[in-house]
Each structure stands twice: as structure tokens, then as C-alpha cells.
């Protein structure tokens, strides 16, 4: 009977049934089998209204979507280009950095490819980086920044992990700090590859221009304080994550709508709706997964999982390696966000048995998912890039392969060198 239900749900999942409905179905069945009424699932779902950390999510997402809709992406590219464009491979490095910062803000990797791809792709082609390199770079860079403050996936991981009251505790601020160096590692490796590629194909270097640098900075006067408000506020401990989110949202709203007027007031509701659409799609999944997590813990599923694998996986190193492969595949299938919500409750308790630090787990979790998002054959971003740049998916698979291998190397370093993540936290 149980087997049949599981089979039906898997078939429905493959058909493309919304994940929230699938998780709700599992939660309802689980509660039912434990002799509880479905109202208990509604009670658990209502806990969405009682989580202070969640306030940051709609606010940061709104800010990100407003920025994406304004001319901020172009200005971001212009400033980084004026700063770094003179380097060999300068524009490619600009692309990597800009994508990372942008995804950190919106949390939506596809939006980054769409919004920044429009600016960067023609520019890369014009400087003769070659079509294959440019496509691969942009597809891979889209998901960069998932572990960079203030990304929504980090907040989600924190919210889910906090359900387990781990020692040491998982704080959102701690996760924000932990992601910096691993993200820097990825950016650095991609930059080195870009420089090497630029040298090899003979990309023309732009001269340094003090005039352009000044103009670019003046052009971006209003956006420049943003990273400092967020980073400074959070790292100095003056602002909690949700407060930094509120300050950012208000600031971006005032700048884009009232000062720069790049988003007409009449268009504001539509942008707000787009942002909340993403938030809603994720939070309904989270709501049901809160119920599911409760049932999983009551039914001691993680414990059973651990005792099942305990015999065959004895060392932490093996566990991490298998976790890597597992997360890559599920990251590909589940597009990042849902993977965090669904997998963390299962993986975290097991990982604690293997003595993995919960904050480090969060970073390696997201670093793996970030790769999974453009892992062939069905990584979401391959399809988004294919639509965006009007190229067959296979072309993008081939183009992003070198970048995938480089980032895979980075992910392995992040996985087996916990100090890289924990250095700034503990």
C-alpha cells in the first residue's frame, strides 16, 4: 500500500505536479498514519507566520527584482568594467563578479542570466572572447553567488536548519559570514581561467581610463552605498538580517522609483507581484515541509536512515563524497530552492552524526546545488540560457563543461576544507 502511494507520487512528480502539492500529500499521509487529523498540517503550515528570519525573504527579493528591472545591472557592469576592464580577461572577470553579486541579491539564478546576459553577452562577443566561452561563462556564472550575502537560499537553509536546534547553532548571520571565502574561491578560479583564455585567443585589452572610471562611479552614485549598508550592517552586528533587508528594500524602492524614476510608479505593482510570486512559490513548499519535518523527526526517519547507511559509510570523507554526488543530482532535478527545503531535514541530522559542522554543511550544500543547477542533462539554467541566447541546449552543455569542471574542483575544496567556510564564523 505504502509502496503504491510512493510510486503514484513519484509518477506525479515526474509529470510535473507542483512540489508543494506533493509534499503536502506526503505530510497529510504521514500525519494520518500517526493518527492525527489534517488540521495538524494546517497548524504546522501556520508556523510560516511565526518565523522572524523569514521577514528578510520577501524584502530582499523585492529589492532584487526592483534592481533587475531598473538600469542597475548596466551600471554595475560599467563600474566593475572601469575598475577591472584593463586586466587581461577583464570583461570576463567583470561578468563573473557582476553575476555573483546580482544572484546574491535576487536569489534567482535564472533572472541573473536573463538580466545580465543581455548586457554581457554582446559585449563579450564584441571583445572576441568567442561564442562558446561567452555562453559557458554566463551559464555557469548565473548560479554563482548563491552562498553570498544576502542570498535567499542561505536564509532558507538557516530557517530549516534552526528547526533542529543544533550545537553549534546555525545563525543567518553566521551563514552570511561563512559563504564569503568559498564564493571568493569560485570567483578567483573562474577569473584565472578567464585570464588564461583571454591570453590564448588574444582578446584586446582596454586601456585604463581615469575619465571613464570617474564617470562610471558618478553614474552609480546611488547604488554604490548598497553593498556597504548590507555588509557593514550585518557584519558589525548593528542590523539583523531582517533589518538589513528592510533597509535595503526601502532604499532601493526610493532610488529606483522616486529618485531615478526608472520604474514608473504604475509599474511597481507588477514588479512587486513578480517578486512575491517567487516568494510564494517557495514559501508554500517551506510551509508543508515544516509539517513534513515534524513528522520525519517523530517517526525517527533520519535516525533510521543513519543506521541504514552507518554500516557501509564509515568515514566522514566517504559520507561527504557520497553527499556531493547526491546533492549534484538532486540540485539538478529540484532547481535549488526546493532541494534545500526538502533535503536539509533528511541530510542535516545524518551529517551531524558524521561530525559535520551545520554551518559548513549549509555552504557545501548550496555550493553543490549551485553546480547542479546547470548540470546536464536537465539543469534548469541550461534551458534558461538556451532560451535567452537562442542556442540549442546541447551547445550550452558543451560550452559550460570547462566551467563546470573548474567549479567542481572548487566544490571539492569547499567540502573537504571546512576551515575555509568556518574561518570567519568561529
Amino acid at each position, binding site marked *: 500500500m505504502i509502496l503504491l502511494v510512493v510510486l503514484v507520487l513519484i509518477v506525479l512528480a515526474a509529470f510535473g505536479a507542483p512540489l508543494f502539492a506533493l509534499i503536502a500529500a506526503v505530510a497529510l499521509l504521514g500525519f494520518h498514519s500517526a493518527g492525527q487529523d489534517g488540521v495538524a498540517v494546517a497548524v504546522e503550515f501556520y508556523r510560516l*507566520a511565526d518565523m522572524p528570519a*523569514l521577514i528578510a525573504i520577501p524584502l530582499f527579493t523585492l529589492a532584487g527584482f526592483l534592481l533587475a528591472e531598473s538600469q542597475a545591472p548596466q551600471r554595475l557592469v560599467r563600474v566593475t568594467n572601469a575598475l577591472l576592464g584593463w586586466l587581461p580577461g577583464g570583461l570576463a572577470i567583470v561578468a563573473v563578479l557582476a553575476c555573483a553579486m546580482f544572484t546574491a541579491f535576487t536569489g534567482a539564478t535564472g533572472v541573473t542570466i*536573463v538580466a545580465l546576459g543581455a548586457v554581457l553577452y554582446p559585449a563579450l562577443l564584441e571583445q572576441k572572447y568567442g561564442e562558446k566561452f561567452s555562453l559557458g561563462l554566463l551559464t555557469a556564472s548565473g548560479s554563482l553567488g548563491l552562498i553570498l550575502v544576502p542570498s535567499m537560499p542561505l536564509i532558507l537553509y538557516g530557517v530549516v536548519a534552526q528547526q533542529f536546534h543544533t550545537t553549534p547553532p546555525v545563525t543567518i548571520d553566521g551563514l552570511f559570514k561563512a559563504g564569503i571565502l568559498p564564493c571568493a574561491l569560485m570567483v578567483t578560479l573562474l577569473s584565472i581561467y578567464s585570464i588564461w583564455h583571454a591570453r590564448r585567443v588574444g582578446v584586446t585589452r582596454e586601456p585604463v581610463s581615469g575619465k571613464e572610471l570617474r564617470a562610471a562611479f558618478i553614474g552609480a552614485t546611488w547604488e554604490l552605498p548598497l553593498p556597504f549598508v548590507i555588509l557593514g550592517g550585518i557584519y558589525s552586528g548593528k542590523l539583523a538580517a531582517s533589518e538589513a533587508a*528592510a533597509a535595503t528594500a526601502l532604499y532601493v524602492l526610493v532610488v529606483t522609483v522616486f529618485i531615478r524614476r526608472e520604474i514608473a510608479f504604475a509599474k511597481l505593482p507588477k514588479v512587486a507581484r513578480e517578486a512575491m510570486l517567487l516568494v510564494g512559490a517557495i514559501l508554500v513548499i517551506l510551509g508543508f515541509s515544516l509539517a513534513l519535518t515534524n513528522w520525519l523527526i517523530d517517526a525517527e526517519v533520519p535516525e533510521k536512515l543513519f543506521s541504514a547507511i552507518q554500516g557501509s559509510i564509515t568515514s566522514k570523507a566517504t559520507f561527504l563524497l557520497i553527499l556531493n554526488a547526491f546533492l549534484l543530482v538532486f540540485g539538478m532535478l529540484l532547481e535549488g530552492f526546493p532541494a534545500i527545503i526538502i533535503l536539509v531535514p533528511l541530510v542535516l541530522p545524518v551529517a551531524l552524526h558524521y561530525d559535520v559542522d551545520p554551518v559548513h554543511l549549509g555552504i557545501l550544500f548550496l555550493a553543490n546545488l549551485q553546480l547542479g543547477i546547470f548540470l546536464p542533462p536537465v539543469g534548469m539554467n541550461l534551458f534558461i540560457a538556451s532560451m535567452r541566447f537562442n542556442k540549442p541546449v546541447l551547445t550550452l552543455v558543451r560550452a559550460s563543461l570547462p566551467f563546470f569542471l573548474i567549479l567542481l574542483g572548487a566544490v571539492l575544496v569547499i567540502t573537504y576544507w571546512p576551515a575555509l567556510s568556518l574561518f570567519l564564523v568561529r
Partner: protein
Amino acid sequence: MSEEGTGATRWLERVETGVIASLVLAMVVLASAQIVLRNFFDSGLSWADPLLRAMVLWAAMLGALAAARDDKHIGIDFVAHFVHGRTRRVLRAISLLFATGIAAAMAWYGVGLVKLDYAGTNAIAGIPGWCIEAIIPIGFALIAVRLAVRAFQPPRSDAPALAPELP
């Protein structure tokens, strides 16, 4: 955005967008006011934080409702890349009708939740708790209706939103 539908549904959709936008803007203003009060005046509105948390739930439910309209609920849709025509339509109908059933069930259990607290006295910012909970049955009921309608309509273009044209 959507050209189909009669004047009435279009009007309803406009109301929905307006409500979402007002809610989000209210969140921004309220959360910012809290920071100013806390940091510069050493005070703060005691009801603002619980209200903000409740607004997250409302924003989530309304966002989920909007996502149902735009076919933006997250699912594993790779089978859809390989099937076409009639098969694709049938798979879509089956999976969306399944989701309709679950959403309807949650609306029903949501009514149970509201009933549970209807007599209670807990309130946030003077709003009785059951009024805040009411978004669960109302939201899921509307989501169920919308998913049922969408099940028999062609999928919306899966091009991501915010797509400026490539030059």
C-alpha cells in the same frame, strides 16, 4: 499580462496585484519604521514584529495564488521537454488536478484551523488570530479553483519573466 479572460476576471486580477503590492509596500514601511524607532529612539512598536511575521504568511499565500495563475509553481518538469501535443496536455491536466485536490483539502483543514481559534482571544495588533489564519483556507480555496481552470488551458510560455530583448 494575460490577454484572455473577460472583463470581470481581468478586474479581479488587477485587484489581486494591487493587494499584493500594497501588502509588500506596507511591510517595507513597517519594517523600516521599526529600525528607525529601535536605533534612534530606543523604542519600537511591540505589535509590529508579530504583525510583520503574519504579513509574511499573507504575502506567501497571495504569491502562491499569483504563481498558480502564471504556471510558476515549482515542479520537476523535465518530462514536459520530451513529450508533445496530446500527451503533454493530458499529463498537465493530471498533475494540476492532483494539486487542485490537495489545495482543496488544505482549504478544508484550514477551515478547521480557523474554527479551532475562532473562540480564542489571541490577537496581533488588535487583529484576532483567526482573521490572520483565515488566509490559509481562503488562499488554498482560490488556488484550488485557479489550478482547476489552468489544468485545461495551455501552459504559459515558460520564458522567464524580466526578459529584456537581446540587442
